[in-house]
């Protein structure tokens, strides 16, 4: 069973607009969430994270929102740039889990100039 789900395989937005990537999870024990960005032929790179004690974390153009009651998180990119075109993975972990991450399937973002 997929404990972390990204139900949109792809997303296309215009440069300068907002990109919103969504992620749902089922395990209520998850207490830390991360977003990774991946370019072709490269390893994933850490983007931003959020603890379950918060509902928002911001870093420059990237903001992650967490809705614990809905078991839903989202990544907002504002403004979107062509260089943001990549695959985005959300991941989750639970305290005491030796850091094991459970990843979603990924969403491919295309930002058009």
């Amino acid at each position, binding site marked *: 069973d997929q404990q*972390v789900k*990204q139900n949109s395989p792809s997303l296309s937005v215009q440069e300068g607009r907002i990109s919103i990537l969504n992620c749902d999870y089922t395990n209520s024990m998850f207490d*830390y969430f*991360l977003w*990774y960005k991946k370019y072709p*032929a*490269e*390893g*994933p*790179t*850490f983007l931003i*994270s959020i*603890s379950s004690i918060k509902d928002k974390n911001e870093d420059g153009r990237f903001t992650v929102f967490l809705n614990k009651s809905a078991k839903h998180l989202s990544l907002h990119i504002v403004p979107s740039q062509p260089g943001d075109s990549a695959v985005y*993975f959300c*991941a989750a*972990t639970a*305290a005491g889990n*030796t*850091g*094991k*991450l*459970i*990843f*979603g*399937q*990924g969403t491919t973002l295309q930002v058009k100039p």
Partner: protein
Amino acid sequence: DAGITQSPRHKVTETGTPVTLRCHQTENHRYMYWYRQDPGHGLRLIHYSYGVKDTDKGEVSDGYSVSRSKTEDFLLTLESATSSQTSVYFCAISGVVRAGSYEQYFGPGTRLTVT
């Protein structure tokens, strides 16, 4: 960038042969992980290590074994490769695992094709 290398970067092998992938880090991080990436599945944890000679299974460990004899090296072995193990394999490292700090840093990946 975290100092993580993977070797080989590409490999083609035949069904039934053993294969070993190497992950090498220069960060002296305690935790190391092996993932595989497949379309529709994201990244799935194969095995991980929480110290020299300390390893444990992940969610898709069948057909794989690991070893960690030194802090800097984490080896993944496919004992008898099958076509279902055709995938891209990523190694990741993490220095600490505690509340508020679970970030892992990934290597460049190894593309393995089993024919």
